[in-house]
């Protein structure tokens, strides 16, 4: 009897994730992917050029900076993090934060082992 009262207008089908009327699901277009692709190739060229210039202590910093920029671009667009819910965004961020915590703790161990002996 419930379905008899159901009007046909305002049709919304939450079980169909690729339905175009589904606002919460964002479909990234090929043009956007092409821009991301071009940005990644540019980053690759840039990092090779930068590595061939003697920048002293800045060589590794720039190489890792460009690598991280590329990684963030891949995650935001290719991996759709930009269009995901807060749950997914927080999950991704917490993973990298946890990794940095572990690196910091392990490094502080190695740095402090011979403390005062040099």
């Amino acid at each position, binding site marked *: 009897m*419930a*379905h008899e*009262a*159901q009007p046909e207008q*305002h*049709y*919304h*089908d*939450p*079980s*169909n*994730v*690729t*339905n175009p009327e589904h606002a*919460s*699901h964002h*479909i*990234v*277009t*090929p043009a956007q*992917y*092409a821009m*991301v*692709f071009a940005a*990644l*190739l540019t980053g*690759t060229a840039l*990092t*090779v050029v930068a*590595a*061939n210039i003697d*920048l*002293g202590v800045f*060589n590794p910093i720039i*190489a*890792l900076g*460009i*690598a991280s920029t*590329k*990684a963030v671009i*891949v*995650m935001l*667009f*290719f*991996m*759709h993090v930009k269009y*995901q*819910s807060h*749950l*997914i965004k927080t*999950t*991704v961020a*917490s*993973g*990298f934060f946890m*990794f940095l915590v*572990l*690196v910091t703790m392990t*490094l502080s161990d*190695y740095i402090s082992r011979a403390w005062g002996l040099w």
Partner: protein
Amino acid sequence: MDSTIANPQVGHDTAEQEHEHVFVPQHRHHFATEEQQREAGSFGMWLFLLTEIMFFGGLFFAYLLYRNWYYDAFVAASNTCSVPLGAANTAILITSGFFMALAMWAAEVRKKKTLVITLICTMLFGFAFLGIKTVEYHEKWVEHHIPGASFDVSEFVNPAAYGLHAQPLAPDAAQKTQLFFFLYFAMTGMHALHMIIGLGILFWLLYRAQRGDFTAGYVAPIENFALYWHFVDIIWVYLFALFYLVNLHPLAH
């Protein structure tokens, strides 16, 4: 499949009556909507990728530490890696990732033919990457740069004899180049293993894609595999920077 929905809320929930539900076979009954199912799937996939970050992270940390401890050996060993081959492989892997992203789009807009073609392109570039990697591994084999009994330090102790302009290393320091090559093979090898597993999964996805499984509203396997494939890309971006690039201009002591 026996996952066809028997809605547990029928007759109890007025929300159920607000809109028509069209139940699709891939929708598991323990999820209220397929949106919820999809988010749970993405969440699970990301949790898996976080364990992968921790796994590779340990290796990256080992690289960071030993590069600081045995800086000269890491510089000398690193500069035997071919930057053109590494750069070509980076571009190839990015291209593979681009086609995987296009495959995701093709599944979402339900273009079966495009999906199949883009999956094939993803695989071709994946195989090209492994091909170049094989050439590089073979080079290491020929030069006796594989850690172990047949490892040869003479190129690092006496670079002039090999026509190289690198600074010669003391024999004990030269032995530490094995640590670099150990990490090189461990990290690029684990990365390559991830690629091989990914290519295996791609064959299966391709089979199902041409059957039309992913172009009728059900994209989760394509979406979650794309996350995996892009993650493997990201790992390579860091491997390229660390193994090929950062030591081209060593610091003077």
